[in-house]
């Protein structure tokens, strides 16, 4: 049985991709795979938006790309993080963390806590 799937909140796909790519050079297909695996199938990447998003990030200078051979000897476009991308990842992660904490606080309120 497949677990229920969630839609990604607006703007989070970029952050997640940056995180995956930060782990080491990776090609587009593997990014989608990894996101799905790590989230245990909860996050399903809309493949149609994956490549435009990658190209946009590359365009903004957050990513760089090289053509390299995969283990099976095929040429693929491997993306890696630039220094600017790393910085972006850090700030966005921190922002995200703060938001989650805040939402957690609000949701964790005891009933009747709000007068």
């Amino acid at each position: 049985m497949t677990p229920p799937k969630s839609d990604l909140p607006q703007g989070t796909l970029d952050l997640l991709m940056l995180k995956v790519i930060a782990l080491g050079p990776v090609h587009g297909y593997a990014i989608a795979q990894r996101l799905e695996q790590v989230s245990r199938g909860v996050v399903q990447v809309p493949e149609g938006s994956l490549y435009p998003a990658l190209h946009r990030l590359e365009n903004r200078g957050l990513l760089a790309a090289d053509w390299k051979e995969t283990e099976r000897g095929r040429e693929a476009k491997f993306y890696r993080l630039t220094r600017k991308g790393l910085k972006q990842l850090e700030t966005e992660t921190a922002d995200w963390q703060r938001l989650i904490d805040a939402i957690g606080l609000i949701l964790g309120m005891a009933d009747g806590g709000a007068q």
Partner: protein
Amino acid sequence: MNWWKRLWRRTQMEAQLEKELSFHLEQHMSQLVARGRAPDEARREARLSLGGPELVKEKCRDARGTRWLEDLLQDTRYALRTFRQNPGFTLVALLILSFGIGATTVMFAVINSVLLRPLSYPEPDRLVTLRLFTEQIGELWGFSNLDFGDVKRESQTLALAAWTYGGGTISEPGEPEYVNGRQISAELFSTLGISPVQGRAFLPDEDRPGAAPLAIISYGLWQRDFGGGPSTIGRSLVYDGKPYTVVGIAPAGFQLDGESDLFTPLEPRRNTDPRMQNRRARFLRVMGRLRPGFGLAEGRAELALIARHLAEEYPKSNTGLSMIAYPLQKELVGDVGSTLWLLLCAVGLVLLIACVNIASLLLARAVSRERELAMRVALGAGRSRLARQCLTESAILGLGGGVLGVVLAFVSIHPFVAFWPGSLPRAEEVHLDWRVLVFAVGASFLSGLLFGLAPALRVPVRGVEQTLRAGARSIAGSSRRWHSAFVISEIAFAVVLLVSAGMLGHTLLALSSLDPGFNVHDVIAARFALSPATLGNPEQVREAWQDVLDRARRVPGVDSVTLADIIPMREGENSLPYWTTATPPPPNHQPVALASCVSPDYLKVMGIPLRQGRFFNEHDRIGSEPVVVIDENLAQHAFGTKDAVGKRIWIPAMSPSPVLIVGIVGHVRHWGLAGDDQSRVHDQMYYPFAQVPSPLLHFFSSIMSIAARTTIPPLKVVQPLGQQLRGAAGDQVLYEIRTMEQLVSASLARQRFLLLLFGIFAGLALLLACIGIYGVLAYLTGQRVPEFGVRIALGASARDVMRLVLRQSLGMIFAGVGVGILAALAAGRLLMHTVDGMRPTEPSTFAIMIPLLVAAALFASFLPARRASRIDPMSALRQE
């Protein structure tokens, strides 16, 4: 990667995108196969989950951020392809445009160099020129030496310098040659802020009386007479019989007011030139530079104050005299500004007509492409995207025309400047610079925008399905409105140009038929200076001049010879105040008259009619009673009658006692055929050269001209006359040789020049307008073929159809003529304002020009009308 790199490597990027996506699909597929799917099914599923490779690709391209440029490139390619498909249209459009833009660019380049670009001196906006002003004469260009000295000493706001005309014969080194020269005050170069290319300028002491004779020579003279050698400084040259030491060489192209080859200090002549001590002898041109911290307004206020002080101190000479400062640039440029702007307007009109023409051609094409455009809108193209494509197309056309236009301008600008009547001020500075190029590019784009706008605005938005369903039957009402507007404006512009040209032609005819007041045929005049060697005592000078006259008279073909200080319609004048009662009127109410100093045969040479009394004879000489001859105008003004022989008038500049009037002669249009009526000095008088006081004789000897009436074509006597008059030392030369016919014709040169150009422009406008009318009507009748077919099928005759078409065109023509007449009246006022002697717009001009235009326009509409009348109803209806 930079955006331009991304753009540049577009194909490579496309290939990479393709490869990346196919890698993705393969990976996905192989994984699905590994999980046990059949390969076909796996491929299908992989493609489905990616969501259509073409769409993804399109999104990725958007993400690249170079979309607009790619669109631009695509539109450009599309436009170029369309142009290639219609080489005829493209060629005609480019030709029309390149001419329009080329001509406009030339005019702008001249305006830019002459009027807009600052003078090539440091801080040119602080340079001013000084003028005198009196109520009676108006502006005077000259200051007296004493006034100049006073103003220079007292002014806190202005550093002043002065110059005056010089000129004489350089007899060494090289062949004797007359050169134009200027006597300058020592500080002239430093005031202008320039320094000689070699040597030095004059030092402050070097224009004092008694200083050694020094000279600065022009760059041209240095090259010509000294071979451009470096050791020229310190060498000497013989100028007017005296040795001068060369101390400096002026920068190339340096000129004050007209070319001059020799600059000498002003003051050494102080001892010999009586004008130097005379406050009424106003012969110095004065310019100045505002001192730091002062503006033009402060300079003017101070000058007014100084002038008032001088008038109080020297009431005899300076009453009513005020001093004004103008920016120097305005002074140097003079009144060519109005001519230039006028021409730019005319050329601009031609360019506008050209644009309208191309607009109507483009619009016709846009309308016939309506279905294609509607189809594209239906397929999802945005309106702005389509409008952008239309504009790209016209912008490319405009730019193409612009490039050709600039090439045309580059080729034709120097011939145009050379063609300018008289000499165009700052002509040597005229060239195409970045500002001109910016103008040309701007004009091209603006033209492109102008003629691309109408088609672009027609991109369909609503009613797409009707358009698609209507098929070939679509007749666009709004397009017909546009087209009539085009034709109407073209005709209106053409009317303006035609009427202006007509006015100029009419004026020129009227002016040419004016009586100049003398017989212009078979007379030659030239400036002439005696050899310095003969300039001994006054008696010798008088004898030398008599000898010149005698020798000249002996030249074969010469009928009579005279001396004169000023020649009608040539530059140079001498206005003297006079009055008719023993007590002089207050200085600023003294009338003035143009005074010519002549020898007895002057009347005969010039062919001026003698009205009463006599002209001078050999008995009017120094020592005998001073006499004058006046013209009809002066007699009328001074005595209220033409019968003034035997009366006396006071001319203080000539004699302290009243002078006897011995004769009355006809008025001469001294200021040119066109300019004489506008001039402030209408009265004229003549006095005998033989009665010039001895102290002034040397000065007069330097300004006299010689004029001869000939029995053969006048230019044929130039050679023998020059030979005969060379003098013992061979250093007397004739210069500025002109026939009177040339001078008369030159006095109308501006009008003739304008007429020629306006005539060309008007002809072009007419031609373009006719092409426009033809094109529009051909198109409109083409659209109505089915309609005409029905009409003919229902019984309309060929004449009926023709009338229908012609009525449509007549409506447009008359609307255009109506608008054009109003605009032409306004343009006529502008012309009267800017051109001397311009006659007001006359009905006859309209009566000639409007029928001409209407006839041409009707002819242009006749061809489409005839074609419409010959439509075969069957085939026309089958088109439906």
